[in-house]
Protein backbone atom coordinates (compact mmCIF):
# COMPACT_ATOMS: atom_id res chain seq x y z
CA UNK A 1 0.00 0.00 0.00
CA UNK A 2 1.43 3.34 -1.05
CA UNK A 3 2.24 5.65 1.84
CA UNK A 4 0.69 9.07 1.33
CA UNK A 5 0.80 12.20 3.47
CA UNK A 6 -2.74 12.77 4.36
CA UNK A 7 -3.00 16.27 2.84
CA UNK A 8 -2.00 14.98 -0.54
CA UNK A 9 -4.09 11.86 -0.92
CA UNK A 10 -4.97 11.37 -4.52
CA UNK A 11 -8.43 9.80 -4.68
CA UNK A 12 -7.49 7.88 -7.81
CA UNK A 13 -4.67 6.16 -5.97
CA UNK A 14 -6.91 4.85 -3.25
CA UNK A 15 -7.53 1.12 -3.31
CA UNK A 16 -11.05 -0.31 -3.03
CA UNK A 17 -12.09 0.78 0.44
CA UNK A 18 -12.27 -2.22 2.70
CA UNK A 19 -11.80 -2.29 6.44
CA UNK A 20 -8.74 -4.37 7.26
CA UNK A 21 -8.74 -5.61 10.83
CA UNK A 22 -5.47 -6.85 12.33
CA UNK A 23 -4.89 -10.40 11.17
CA UNK A 24 -5.95 -12.90 13.84
CA UNK A 25 -4.66 -16.05 12.25
CA UNK A 26 -1.22 -16.35 10.80
CA UNK A 27 -2.43 -19.08 8.50
CA UNK A 28 -4.71 -16.65 6.70
CA UNK A 29 -1.80 -14.52 5.54
CA UNK A 30 -1.77 -15.98 2.07
CA UNK A 31 -5.55 -15.62 1.68
CA UNK A 32 -7.57 -12.53 0.88
CA UNK A 33 -6.98 -9.62 3.23
CA UNK A 34 -10.62 -8.60 2.94
CA UNK A 35 -12.49 -10.05 5.93
CA UNK A 36 -15.40 -12.12 4.80
CA UNK A 37 -18.27 -11.30 7.17
CA UNK A 38 -19.94 -14.65 7.77
CA UNK A 39 -23.31 -14.47 6.10
CA UNK A 40 -26.44 -15.83 7.67
CA UNK A 41 -28.89 -18.06 5.88
CA UNK A 42 -31.69 -15.49 5.87
CA UNK A 43 -29.63 -13.30 3.57
CA UNK A 44 -29.82 -15.89 0.81
CA UNK A 45 -33.31 -17.14 1.54
CA UNK A 46 -34.95 -18.01 -1.79
CA UNK A 47 -38.56 -17.24 -0.85
CA UNK A 48 -40.33 -13.89 -1.14
CA UNK A 49 -39.94 -12.88 2.48
CA UNK A 50 -38.37 -9.96 4.24
CA UNK A 51 -36.32 -10.25 7.39
CA UNK A 52 -35.67 -7.83 10.20
CA UNK A 53 -33.56 -7.78 13.35
CA UNK A 54 -30.91 -10.00 11.87
CA UNK A 55 -33.34 -12.66 10.72
CA UNK A 56 -35.33 -12.88 13.93
CA UNK A 57 -38.46 -11.38 12.42
CA UNK A 58 -39.92 -12.73 9.17
CA UNK A 59 -42.74 -11.20 7.15
CA UNK A 60 -44.14 -11.75 3.68
CA UNK A 61 -42.84 -9.59 0.84
CA UNK A 62 -46.07 -7.62 0.70
CA UNK A 63 -47.11 -6.61 4.17
CA UNK A 64 -50.67 -6.48 2.91
CA UNK A 65 -52.84 -4.42 5.14
CA UNK A 66 -51.05 -5.18 8.40
CA UNK A 67 -50.44 -1.46 9.08
CA UNK A 68 -54.16 -0.87 8.56
CA UNK A 69 -55.10 -3.70 10.94
CA UNK A 70 -52.71 -2.42 13.58
CA UNK A 71 -53.82 1.15 13.03
CA UNK A 72 -57.51 0.34 13.38
CA UNK A 73 -56.92 -1.61 16.57
CA UNK A 74 -54.74 1.12 18.09
CA UNK A 75 -57.07 3.95 17.09
CA UNK A 76 -60.22 2.23 18.31
CA UNK A 77 -58.66 1.16 21.59
CA UNK A 78 -57.07 4.57 22.06
CA UNK A 79 -60.37 6.34 21.57
CA UNK A 80 -61.98 3.88 23.96
CA UNK A 81 -59.50 4.58 26.73
CA UNK A 82 -59.61 8.32 26.20
CA UNK A 83 -63.31 8.98 25.70
CA UNK A 84 -65.26 6.13 27.25
CA UNK A 85 -63.23 4.81 30.15
CA UNK A 86 -63.24 7.96 32.32
CA UNK A 87 -67.02 8.22 32.13
CA UNK A 88 -67.60 4.52 32.72
CA UNK A 89 -65.14 4.34 35.59
CA UNK A 90 -67.00 7.18 37.24
CA UNK A 91 -70.47 5.78 36.64
CA UNK A 92 -69.95 2.03 36.63
CA UNK A 93 -66.81 0.24 37.70
CA UNK A 94 -63.07 0.58 37.35
CA UNK A 95 -62.78 -2.99 36.08
CA UNK A 96 -63.65 -1.78 32.60
CA UNK A 97 -60.28 -0.28 31.63
CA UNK A 98 -58.54 -3.27 33.24
CA UNK A 99 -60.47 -5.79 31.15
CA UNK A 100 -60.06 -3.60 28.09
CA UNK A 101 -56.35 -3.29 28.72
CA UNK A 102 -55.82 -7.03 29.09
CA UNK A 103 -57.74 -7.77 25.90
CA UNK A 104 -55.88 -5.04 24.01
CA UNK A 105 -52.49 -6.38 25.09
CA UNK A 106 -53.52 -9.91 24.09
CA UNK A 107 -54.70 -8.74 20.69
CA UNK A 108 -51.59 -6.74 19.85
CA UNK A 109 -49.14 -9.38 21.05
CA UNK A 110 -50.84 -12.23 19.19
CA UNK A 111 -51.19 -10.11 16.05
CA UNK A 112 -47.48 -9.34 16.05
CA UNK A 113 -46.64 -12.96 16.71
CA UNK A 114 -48.83 -14.13 13.86
CA UNK A 115 -47.22 -11.63 11.51
CA UNK A 116 -43.62 -12.09 12.50
CA UNK A 117 -43.40 -15.83 13.10
CA UNK A 118 -42.26 -18.33 10.52
CA UNK A 119 -45.56 -20.08 9.60
CA UNK A 120 -43.88 -23.43 9.01
CA UNK A 121 -41.90 -22.81 5.86
CA UNK A 122 -40.24 -25.87 4.40
CA UNK A 123 -36.73 -25.21 3.15
CA UNK A 124 -36.21 -26.10 -0.49
CA UNK A 125 -34.60 -29.37 -1.39
CA UNK A 126 -30.84 -29.41 -1.84
CA UNK A 127 -29.63 -30.24 -5.37
CA UNK A 128 -28.62 -33.74 -4.26
CA UNK A 129 -32.06 -34.46 -2.86
CA UNK A 130 -33.75 -33.08 -5.96
CA UNK A 131 -31.58 -35.26 -8.20
CA UNK A 132 -32.41 -38.29 -6.07
CA UNK A 133 -36.16 -37.67 -6.38
CA UNK A 134 -35.92 -37.02 -10.13
CA UNK A 135 -34.14 -40.30 -10.56
CA UNK A 136 -37.01 -42.17 -8.93
CA UNK A 137 -39.61 -40.46 -11.02
CA UNK A 138 -37.90 -41.23 -14.30
CA UNK A 139 -37.67 -44.89 -13.41
CA UNK A 140 -41.45 -45.36 -13.52
CA UNK A 141 -41.05 -46.40 -17.12
CA UNK A 142 -42.97 -43.69 -18.90
CA UNK A 143 -41.41 -43.30 -22.29
CA UNK A 144 -43.57 -40.57 -23.79
CA UNK A 145 -42.16 -37.10 -24.20
CA UNK A 146 -44.49 -35.75 -21.54
CA UNK A 147 -43.15 -36.29 -18.02
CA UNK A 148 -45.23 -38.64 -15.87
CA UNK A 149 -47.71 -37.05 -13.45
CA UNK A 150 -45.77 -35.93 -10.48
CA UNK A 151 -47.95 -37.17 -7.72
CA UNK A 152 -47.30 -39.86 -5.17
CA UNK A 153 -50.00 -41.68 -3.26
CA UNK A 154 -49.74 -42.60 0.37
CA UNK A 155 -52.25 -44.23 2.66
CA UNK A 156 -52.84 -42.33 5.87
CA UNK A 157 -55.21 -43.88 8.37
CA UNK A 158 -56.99 -45.87 5.64
CA UNK A 159 -57.39 -42.81 3.41
CA UNK A 160 -55.56 -42.41 0.12
CA UNK A 161 -53.82 -39.05 0.05
CA UNK A 162 -52.08 -37.68 -3.04
CA UNK A 163 -48.78 -35.92 -2.48
CA UNK A 164 -47.98 -33.39 -5.17
CA UNK A 165 -44.52 -32.57 -6.46
CA UNK A 166 -43.55 -28.93 -6.00
CA UNK A 167 -41.55 -27.66 -8.98
CA UNK A 168 -40.26 -24.64 -7.13
CA UNK A 169 -39.08 -26.41 -4.01
CA UNK A 170 -38.16 -29.61 -5.91
CA UNK A 171 -39.71 -32.07 -3.50
CA UNK A 172 -42.89 -33.98 -2.88
CA UNK A 173 -44.94 -31.89 -0.53
CA UNK A 174 -45.75 -33.57 2.79
CA UNK A 175 -49.47 -34.03 3.50
CA UNK A 176 -51.35 -30.81 4.29
CA UNK A 177 -48.53 -28.72 2.88
CA UNK A 178 -49.25 -26.16 0.21
CA UNK A 179 -47.16 -23.75 -1.80
CA UNK A 180 -48.04 -20.11 -1.25
CA UNK A 181 -47.37 -18.21 -4.44
CA UNK A 182 -47.40 -14.86 -2.65
CA UNK A 183 -44.55 -15.91 -0.40
CA UNK A 184 -43.11 -18.47 -2.85
CA UNK A 185 -42.67 -21.03 -0.09
CA UNK A 186 -44.12 -24.39 0.77
CA UNK A 187 -45.82 -24.02 4.14
CA UNK A 188 -46.68 -26.94 6.39
CA UNK A 189 -50.32 -27.36 7.38
CA UNK A 190 -51.09 -24.38 5.14
CA UNK A 191 -54.26 -22.64 6.25
CA UNK A 192 -54.36 -19.48 4.15
CA UNK A 193 -52.35 -16.38 3.34
CA UNK A 194 -53.89 -13.62 5.42
CA UNK A 195 -53.41 -10.10 4.00
CA UNK A 196 -54.66 -8.59 7.29
CA UNK A 197 -51.68 -9.97 9.17
CA UNK A 198 -49.35 -9.83 6.19
CA UNK A 199 -48.17 -13.44 6.48
CA UNK A 200 -49.18 -17.01 5.76
CA UNK A 201 -51.02 -18.87 8.47
CA UNK A 202 -49.60 -22.36 8.86
CA UNK A 203 -48.56 -24.97 11.35
CA UNK A 204 -46.40 -22.78 13.55
CA UNK A 205 -48.50 -19.67 13.81
CA UNK A 206 -52.05 -21.00 13.59
CA UNK A 207 -52.46 -20.93 17.36
CA UNK A 208 -51.33 -17.28 17.45
CA UNK A 209 -53.78 -16.47 14.66
CA UNK A 210 -56.67 -18.22 16.40
CA UNK A 211 -55.93 -16.50 19.72
CA UNK A 212 -55.71 -13.21 17.82
CA UNK A 213 -59.14 -13.49 16.20
CA UNK A 214 -60.81 -14.80 19.34
CA UNK A 215 -59.38 -12.07 21.55
CA UNK A 216 -60.12 -9.49 18.85
CA UNK A 217 -63.76 -10.57 18.76
CA UNK A 218 -63.93 -10.28 22.54
CA UNK A 219 -62.27 -6.86 22.39
CA UNK A 220 -64.53 -5.60 19.62
CA UNK A 221 -67.66 -6.87 21.35
CA UNK A 222 -66.48 -5.43 24.67
CA UNK A 223 -65.75 -2.00 23.20
CA UNK A 224 -69.05 -2.04 21.33
CA UNK A 225 -70.92 -2.88 24.50
CA UNK A 226 -69.11 -0.26 26.55
CA UNK A 227 -69.64 2.46 23.97
CA UNK A 228 -73.33 1.65 23.71
CA UNK A 229 -73.64 1.75 27.51
CA UNK A 230 -71.72 5.00 27.64
CA UNK A 231 -73.92 6.68 25.04
CA UNK A 232 -77.07 5.28 26.65
CA UNK A 233 -76.06 6.66 30.03
CA UNK A 234 -75.24 10.05 28.55
CA UNK A 235 -78.53 10.16 26.65
CA UNK A 236 -80.52 9.51 29.82
CA UNK A 237 -82.82 12.10 31.23
CA UNK A 238 -84.31 13.01 27.87
CA UNK A 239 -81.09 14.52 26.54
CA UNK A 240 -81.11 12.36 23.39
CA UNK A 241 -78.54 10.45 21.42
CA UNK A 242 -77.38 13.44 19.38
CA UNK A 243 -76.44 15.29 22.56
CA UNK A 244 -74.53 12.26 23.76
CA UNK A 245 -72.64 11.99 20.48
CA UNK A 246 -71.76 15.65 20.58
CA UNK A 247 -70.36 15.27 24.08
CA UNK A 248 -68.24 12.30 23.12
CA UNK A 249 -67.40 12.39 19.40
CA UNK A 250 -64.77 9.68 19.69
CA UNK A 251 -67.47 7.25 20.65
CA UNK A 252 -69.16 7.79 17.31
CA UNK A 253 -66.04 6.66 15.47
CA UNK A 254 -65.68 3.62 17.71
CA UNK A 255 -69.32 2.75 17.24
CA UNK A 256 -69.05 2.73 13.48
CA UNK A 257 -65.82 0.71 13.41
CA UNK A 258 -67.01 -1.82 15.96
CA UNK A 259 -70.47 -2.22 14.49
CA UNK A 260 -69.13 -3.15 11.08
CA UNK A 261 -66.28 -5.35 12.28
CA UNK A 262 -67.86 -7.29 15.12
CA UNK A 263 -70.04 -9.40 12.82
CA UNK A 264 -67.27 -10.43 10.46
CA UNK A 265 -64.76 -11.07 13.24
CA UNK A 266 -67.24 -13.08 15.27
CA UNK A 267 -68.12 -15.04 12.17
CA UNK A 268 -64.47 -15.69 11.44
CA UNK A 269 -63.84 -16.86 15.01
CA UNK A 270 -66.81 -19.18 14.76
CA UNK A 271 -65.58 -20.60 11.47
CA UNK A 272 -62.08 -21.20 12.80
CA UNK A 273 -63.46 -22.76 15.98
CA UNK A 274 -65.27 -25.23 13.74
CA UNK A 275 -62.02 -25.88 11.83
CA UNK A 276 -60.05 -26.41 15.02
CA UNK A 277 -62.60 -28.81 16.48
CA UNK A 278 -62.56 -30.94 13.34
CA UNK A 279 -58.80 -30.56 12.71
CA UNK A 280 -59.26 -29.02 9.28
CA UNK A 281 -57.49 -26.21 7.52
CA UNK A 282 -59.18 -23.41 5.56
CA UNK A 283 -57.45 -24.76 2.48
CA UNK A 284 -58.95 -28.23 2.93
CA UNK A 285 -62.36 -26.85 3.78
CA UNK A 286 -62.52 -24.66 0.70
CA UNK A 287 -61.30 -27.42 -1.59
CA UNK A 288 -63.65 -29.89 0.06
CA UNK A 289 -60.89 -32.47 0.38
CA UNK A 290 -62.62 -34.46 3.09
CA UNK A 291 -66.27 -33.58 2.61
CA UNK A 292 -66.97 -36.49 0.30
CA UNK A 293 -68.31 -34.33 -2.50
CA UNK A 294 -66.87 -36.75 -5.05
CA UNK A 295 -69.29 -39.35 -3.78
CA UNK A 296 -66.69 -41.56 -2.14
CA UNK A 297 -66.64 -42.26 1.52
CA UNK A 298 -63.88 -39.92 2.60
CA UNK A 299 -63.20 -38.76 6.10
CA UNK A 300 -60.52 -36.52 7.48
CA UNK A 301 -57.58 -38.83 8.24
CA UNK A 302 -55.95 -36.31 10.55
CA UNK A 303 -58.90 -35.91 12.90
CA UNK A 304 -58.66 -37.59 16.29
CA UNK A 305 -62.46 -38.17 16.21
CA UNK A 306 -62.85 -36.27 19.46
CA UNK A 307 -63.51 -32.52 19.57
CA UNK A 308 -61.55 -32.00 22.76
CA UNK A 309 -58.48 -33.86 21.52
CA UNK A 310 -58.66 -32.06 18.17
CA UNK A 311 -58.72 -28.68 19.89
CA UNK A 312 -55.89 -29.63 22.22
CA UNK A 313 -53.70 -30.99 19.44
CA UNK A 314 -54.12 -27.90 17.27
CA UNK A 315 -53.90 -25.24 19.95
CA UNK A 316 -51.95 -26.81 22.80
CA UNK A 317 -49.77 -29.29 20.97
CA UNK A 318 -45.97 -29.11 21.04
CA UNK A 319 -44.59 -26.07 19.26
CA UNK A 320 -42.67 -27.29 16.21
CA UNK A 321 -39.30 -25.66 15.52
CA UNK A 322 -38.57 -23.36 12.60
CA UNK A 323 -37.05 -25.43 9.82
CA UNK A 324 -35.41 -22.64 7.90
CA UNK A 325 -32.68 -21.76 10.44
CA UNK A 326 -32.69 -18.08 9.54
CA UNK A 327 -29.84 -17.11 11.80
CA UNK A 328 -27.55 -20.01 11.00
CA UNK A 329 -24.32 -19.17 9.22
CA UNK A 330 -23.71 -20.18 5.66
CA UNK A 331 -20.97 -22.79 5.45
CA UNK A 332 -20.04 -21.35 2.02
CA UNK A 333 -18.02 -18.61 3.67
CA UNK A 334 -16.01 -21.08 5.68
CA UNK A 335 -15.25 -23.16 2.64
CA UNK A 336 -14.17 -20.06 0.73
CA UNK A 337 -11.69 -19.22 3.45
CA UNK A 338 -10.21 -22.66 3.74
CA UNK A 339 -9.22 -22.67 0.06
CA UNK A 340 -7.19 -25.59 -1.20
CA UNK A 341 -4.53 -26.13 1.46
CA UNK A 342 -5.40 -29.35 3.23
CA UNK A 343 -2.90 -28.79 6.01
CA UNK A 344 -4.66 -25.62 7.04
CA UNK A 345 -7.98 -27.38 7.32
CA UNK A 346 -7.85 -28.76 10.86
CA UNK A 347 -6.60 -25.48 12.36
CA UNK A 348 -9.25 -23.42 10.62
CA UNK A 349 -11.97 -25.95 11.26
CA UNK A 350 -11.37 -25.94 14.98
CA UNK A 351 -11.14 -22.18 15.22
CA UNK A 352 -14.17 -21.52 13.09
CA UNK A 353 -16.22 -24.34 14.55
CA UNK A 354 -18.85 -22.01 15.91
CA UNK A 355 -19.48 -20.54 12.51
CA UNK A 356 -20.11 -23.81 10.74
CA UNK A 357 -21.98 -26.11 13.05
CA UNK A 358 -21.98 -27.46 16.54
CA UNK A 359 -21.19 -31.04 15.64
CA UNK A 360 -17.45 -31.50 15.75
CA UNK A 361 -17.35 -34.61 13.60
CA UNK A 362 -19.38 -33.09 10.86
CA UNK A 363 -17.42 -29.86 11.01
CA UNK A 364 -14.15 -31.68 10.35
CA UNK A 365 -15.54 -33.80 7.59
CA UNK A 366 -17.55 -31.09 5.89
CA UNK A 367 -14.69 -28.65 5.84
CA UNK A 368 -12.79 -31.14 3.76
CA UNK A 369 -15.65 -32.07 1.52
CA UNK A 370 -18.07 -29.96 -0.40
CA UNK A 371 -20.98 -29.14 1.93
CA UNK A 372 -24.38 -29.44 0.29
CA UNK A 373 -25.19 -25.79 0.94
CA UNK A 374 -22.05 -24.70 -0.85
CA UNK A 375 -23.29 -26.31 -4.02
CA UNK A 376 -26.45 -24.22 -3.89
CA UNK A 377 -24.51 -20.97 -3.77
CA UNK A 378 -21.82 -21.78 -6.29
CA UNK A 379 -21.76 -23.62 -9.54
CA UNK A 380 -20.74 -27.23 -8.88
CA UNK A 381 -17.32 -26.19 -7.69
CA UNK A 382 -14.50 -27.90 -5.89
CA UNK A 383 -13.20 -26.00 -2.88
CA UNK A 384 -10.42 -24.55 -5.02
CA UNK A 385 -12.87 -22.69 -7.19
CA UNK A 386 -14.95 -21.57 -4.23
CA UNK A 387 -13.02 -18.32 -4.19
CA UNK A 388 -15.07 -17.04 -7.09
CA UNK A 389 -18.39 -17.49 -5.35
CA UNK A 390 -18.19 -14.85 -2.63
CA UNK A 391 -17.03 -12.38 -5.25
CA UNK A 392 -20.15 -12.84 -7.29
CA UNK A 393 -22.68 -13.26 -4.54
CA UNK A 394 -22.54 -9.77 -2.99
CA UNK A 395 -23.17 -8.28 -6.40
CA UNK A 396 -26.13 -10.48 -7.09
CA UNK A 397 -28.07 -10.10 -3.91
CA UNK A 398 -31.33 -11.66 -4.80
CA UNK A 399 -29.92 -14.28 -7.11
CA UNK A 400 -27.19 -16.09 -5.26
CA UNK A 401 -26.88 -19.19 -7.35
CA UNK A 402 -27.08 -20.20 -10.98
CA UNK A 403 -29.24 -23.16 -10.07
CA UNK A 404 -31.70 -20.97 -8.28
CA UNK A 405 -31.56 -18.32 -10.96
CA UNK A 406 -34.07 -20.20 -13.07
CA UNK A 407 -36.67 -20.12 -10.35
CA UNK A 408 -35.66 -16.58 -9.39
CA UNK A 409 -36.08 -15.34 -12.93
CA UNK A 410 -39.44 -16.98 -13.24
CA UNK A 411 -40.41 -15.66 -9.85
CA UNK A 412 -39.70 -12.11 -10.90
CA UNK A 413 -41.63 -12.67 -14.08
CA UNK A 414 -44.50 -14.12 -12.14
CA UNK A 415 -44.45 -11.45 -9.51
CA UNK A 416 -46.61 -9.06 -11.50
CA UNK A 417 -49.65 -11.31 -11.60
CA UNK A 418 -48.86 -12.28 -8.05
CA UNK A 419 -48.70 -8.65 -7.05
CA UNK A 420 -52.00 -7.90 -8.68
CA UNK A 421 -54.02 -10.37 -6.69
CA UNK A 422 -53.30 -9.19 -3.14
CA UNK A 423 -53.80 -5.55 -4.12
CA UNK A 424 -57.04 -6.55 -5.73
CA UNK A 425 -57.94 -8.26 -2.47
CA UNK A 426 -57.07 -5.33 -0.28
CA UNK A 427 -58.97 -2.91 -2.47
CA UNK A 428 -61.99 -5.14 -2.66
CA UNK A 429 -62.09 -5.78 1.05
CA UNK A 430 -64.04 -3.40 3.07
CA UNK A 431 -64.76 -4.22 6.68
CA UNK A 432 -68.03 -5.84 5.64
CA UNK A 433 -66.40 -8.28 3.26
CA UNK A 434 -63.42 -9.03 5.49
CA UNK A 435 -64.69 -12.49 6.22
CA UNK A 436 -65.14 -13.26 2.54
CA UNK A 437 -61.64 -12.06 1.80
CA UNK A 438 -60.12 -14.25 4.46
CA UNK A 439 -61.99 -17.26 3.22
CA UNK A 440 -60.83 -16.74 -0.32
CA UNK A 441 -57.33 -15.79 0.51
CA UNK A 442 -55.43 -16.41 -2.63
CA UNK A 443 -56.86 -17.94 -5.76
CA UNK A 444 -53.34 -18.81 -6.81
CA UNK A 445 -52.79 -21.25 -4.00
CA UNK A 446 -54.95 -23.80 -5.73
CA UNK A 447 -52.28 -24.14 -8.34
CA UNK A 448 -49.83 -26.53 -6.78
CA UNK A 449 -46.91 -25.76 -9.04
CA UNK A 450 -44.91 -22.64 -9.67
CA UNK A 451 -44.83 -20.91 -13.05
CA UNK A 452 -41.36 -22.33 -13.66
CA UNK A 453 -42.92 -25.56 -14.84
CA UNK A 454 -44.29 -25.69 -18.35
CA UNK A 455 -46.53 -28.50 -17.21
CA UNK A 456 -48.27 -26.40 -14.59
CA UNK A 457 -51.46 -26.13 -16.55
CA UNK A 458 -51.56 -29.82 -17.27
CA UNK A 459 -51.54 -30.73 -13.59
CA UNK A 460 -54.51 -28.59 -12.65
CA UNK A 461 -57.01 -31.38 -13.35
CA UNK A 462 -55.14 -33.70 -10.97
CA UNK A 463 -56.81 -32.16 -7.98
Amino acid sequence: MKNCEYQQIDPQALPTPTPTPPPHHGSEGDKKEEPRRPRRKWEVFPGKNRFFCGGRIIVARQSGVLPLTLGLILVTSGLFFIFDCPFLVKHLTSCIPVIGGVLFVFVVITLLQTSFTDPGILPRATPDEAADIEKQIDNTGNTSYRPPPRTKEVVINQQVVKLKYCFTCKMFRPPRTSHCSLCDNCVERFDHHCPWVGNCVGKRNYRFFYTFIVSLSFLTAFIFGCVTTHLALRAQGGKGLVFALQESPGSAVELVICFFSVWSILGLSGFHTYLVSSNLTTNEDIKGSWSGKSGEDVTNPYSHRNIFINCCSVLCGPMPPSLIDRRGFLPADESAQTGGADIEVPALATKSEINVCTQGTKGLLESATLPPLLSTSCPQGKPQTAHTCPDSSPAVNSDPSPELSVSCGARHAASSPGDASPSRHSKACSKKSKRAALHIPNPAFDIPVSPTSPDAASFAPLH
Partner: protein
Amino acid sequence: MAETHSLQDMRQQAAIAAKVFLQRDYTNGTVCQFQTKFPSELETRIDKQQFEETVRTLNNLYAEAEKLGSQSYIEGCLACLTAYTIFLCMETHYEKVLKKIAKYIQEQNDKIYAPRGLLLTDPIERGLRVIEVTIFEDRSLTR
Protein backbone atom coordinates in the same frame (compact mmCIF):
# COMPACT_ATOMS: atom_id res chain seq x y z
CA MET B 1 -15.26 -56.18 7.17
CA ALA B 2 -13.46 -52.87 6.65
CA GLU B 3 -10.80 -51.93 9.13
CA THR B 4 -11.78 -49.03 11.31
CA HIS B 5 -10.59 -45.57 10.33
CA SER B 6 -9.94 -42.66 12.60
CA LEU B 7 -11.58 -39.35 11.89
CA GLN B 8 -8.24 -37.88 10.82
CA ASP B 9 -7.89 -40.53 8.12
CA MET B 10 -11.45 -39.87 7.02
CA ARG B 11 -10.75 -36.21 6.56
CA GLN B 12 -7.66 -36.67 4.48
CA GLN B 13 -9.17 -39.15 2.09
CA ALA B 14 -12.74 -37.86 2.25
CA ALA B 15 -14.35 -37.81 -1.14
CA ILE B 16 -18.06 -38.28 -1.51
CA ALA B 17 -18.96 -41.37 -3.49
CA ALA B 18 -22.73 -41.18 -3.15
CA LYS B 19 -25.58 -39.90 -1.04
CA VAL B 20 -28.57 -41.91 0.03
CA PHE B 21 -31.79 -40.27 1.19
CA LEU B 22 -34.27 -41.87 3.53
CA GLN B 23 -37.64 -40.29 2.93
CA ARG B 24 -40.40 -39.63 5.38
CA ASP B 25 -43.02 -42.22 6.22
CA TYR B 26 -46.49 -40.68 6.20
CA THR B 27 -48.61 -43.72 6.97
CA ASN B 28 -49.36 -42.41 10.46
CA GLY B 29 -50.14 -38.89 9.36
CA THR B 30 -48.00 -35.81 9.55
CA VAL B 31 -45.90 -36.91 12.55
CA CYS B 32 -42.19 -37.02 11.81
CA GLN B 33 -41.26 -40.61 11.01
CA PHE B 34 -38.69 -41.94 8.55
CA GLN B 35 -38.87 -45.03 6.40
CA THR B 36 -36.89 -47.89 7.87
CA LYS B 37 -36.33 -49.62 4.54
CA PHE B 38 -32.64 -50.48 4.26
CA PRO B 39 -31.12 -48.79 1.17
CA SER B 40 -29.27 -51.19 -1.13
CA GLU B 41 -26.27 -48.84 -1.50
CA LEU B 42 -25.38 -49.39 2.14
CA GLU B 43 -25.38 -53.17 1.97
CA THR B 44 -21.62 -53.41 1.65
CA ARG B 45 -20.91 -50.86 4.34
CA ILE B 46 -23.06 -51.53 7.34
CA ASP B 47 -25.11 -54.19 9.01
CA LYS B 48 -28.83 -53.93 8.23
CA GLN B 49 -29.88 -54.51 11.85
CA GLN B 50 -27.59 -51.77 13.07
CA PHE B 51 -28.89 -49.25 10.58
CA GLU B 52 -32.53 -50.06 11.18
CA GLU B 53 -31.91 -49.76 14.91
CA THR B 54 -30.55 -46.24 14.41
CA VAL B 55 -33.52 -45.17 12.30
CA ARG B 56 -35.98 -46.75 14.71
CA THR B 57 -34.41 -44.91 17.65
CA LEU B 58 -34.62 -41.64 15.71
CA ASN B 59 -38.28 -42.31 14.95
CA ASN B 60 -38.96 -42.93 18.63
CA LEU B 61 -37.21 -39.73 19.59
CA TYR B 62 -39.26 -37.70 17.11
CA ALA B 63 -42.44 -39.38 18.35
CA GLU B 64 -41.47 -38.34 21.86
CA ALA B 65 -40.98 -34.75 20.71
CA GLU B 66 -44.41 -34.58 19.09
CA LYS B 67 -46.26 -36.61 21.69
CA LEU B 68 -49.62 -35.21 22.75
CA GLY B 69 -49.42 -35.76 26.46
CA SER B 70 -50.10 -33.92 29.65
CA GLN B 71 -46.76 -32.14 29.52
CA SER B 72 -47.39 -30.66 26.10
CA TYR B 73 -50.93 -29.64 27.07
CA ILE B 74 -49.72 -27.88 30.21
CA GLU B 75 -47.02 -26.13 28.21
CA GLY B 76 -49.58 -25.13 25.58
CA CYS B 77 -52.16 -23.82 28.03
CA LEU B 78 -49.57 -21.88 30.01
CA ALA B 79 -48.28 -20.38 26.78
CA CYS B 80 -51.80 -19.37 25.74
CA LEU B 81 -52.44 -17.66 29.08
CA THR B 82 -49.27 -15.61 28.73
CA ALA B 83 -50.13 -14.67 25.12
CA TYR B 84 -47.37 -17.04 23.99
CA THR B 85 -44.66 -14.77 25.33
CA ILE B 86 -43.07 -17.63 27.24
CA PHE B 87 -41.84 -19.02 23.93
CA LEU B 88 -39.44 -16.11 23.85
CA CYS B 89 -37.72 -17.09 27.08
CA MET B 90 -38.34 -20.79 27.54
CA GLU B 91 -37.00 -23.68 25.53
CA THR B 92 -39.87 -25.83 24.35
CA HIS B 93 -40.07 -29.57 24.89
CA TYR B 94 -39.58 -30.11 21.15
CA GLU B 95 -36.35 -28.14 21.16
CA LYS B 96 -35.05 -30.13 24.11
CA VAL B 97 -35.69 -33.38 22.27
CA LEU B 98 -34.06 -31.99 19.11
CA LYS B 99 -30.90 -31.41 21.12
CA LYS B 100 -31.08 -34.98 22.35
CA ILE B 101 -31.44 -36.15 18.74
CA ALA B 102 -28.44 -34.09 17.64
CA LYS B 103 -26.34 -35.62 20.38
CA TYR B 104 -27.51 -39.13 19.48
CA ILE B 105 -26.65 -38.65 15.81
CA GLN B 106 -23.22 -37.31 16.65
CA GLU B 107 -22.58 -40.23 18.94
CA GLN B 108 -23.72 -42.72 16.28
CA ASN B 109 -21.52 -41.02 13.70
CA ASP B 110 -18.48 -41.12 15.97
CA LYS B 111 -18.90 -44.72 17.06
CA ILE B 112 -20.49 -46.56 14.18
CA TYR B 113 -20.77 -44.63 10.93
CA ALA B 114 -17.54 -42.69 10.57
CA PRO B 115 -15.38 -45.84 10.99
CA ARG B 116 -17.31 -47.35 8.08
CA GLY B 117 -16.96 -44.29 5.85
CA LEU B 118 -20.51 -43.09 6.32
CA LEU B 119 -22.01 -39.91 7.71
CA LEU B 120 -25.52 -39.29 8.92
CA THR B 121 -26.82 -35.75 8.54
CA ASP B 122 -29.23 -34.51 11.19
CA PRO B 123 -32.68 -34.32 9.49
CA ILE B 124 -33.31 -30.89 11.00
CA GLU B 125 -30.67 -29.53 8.62
CA ARG B 126 -32.73 -30.83 5.71
CA GLY B 127 -36.03 -29.47 7.01
CA LEU B 128 -37.03 -32.79 8.58
CA ARG B 129 -37.63 -34.14 5.07
CA VAL B 130 -34.93 -36.78 4.75
CA ILE B 131 -32.15 -38.54 6.60
CA GLU B 132 -29.14 -37.98 4.35
CA VAL B 133 -26.47 -40.65 4.48
CA THR B 134 -23.23 -39.63 2.82
CA ILE B 135 -21.08 -42.49 1.57
CA PHE B 136 -17.41 -41.65 1.37
CA GLU B 137 -15.04 -43.22 -1.08
CA ASP B 138 -12.85 -45.62 0.77
CA ARG B 139 -9.49 -45.41 -1.05
CA SER B 140 -7.56 -47.64 1.30
CA LEU B 141 -9.87 -50.54 0.54
CA THR B 142 -9.38 -50.29 -3.22
CA ARG B 143 -5.59 -50.68 -2.89
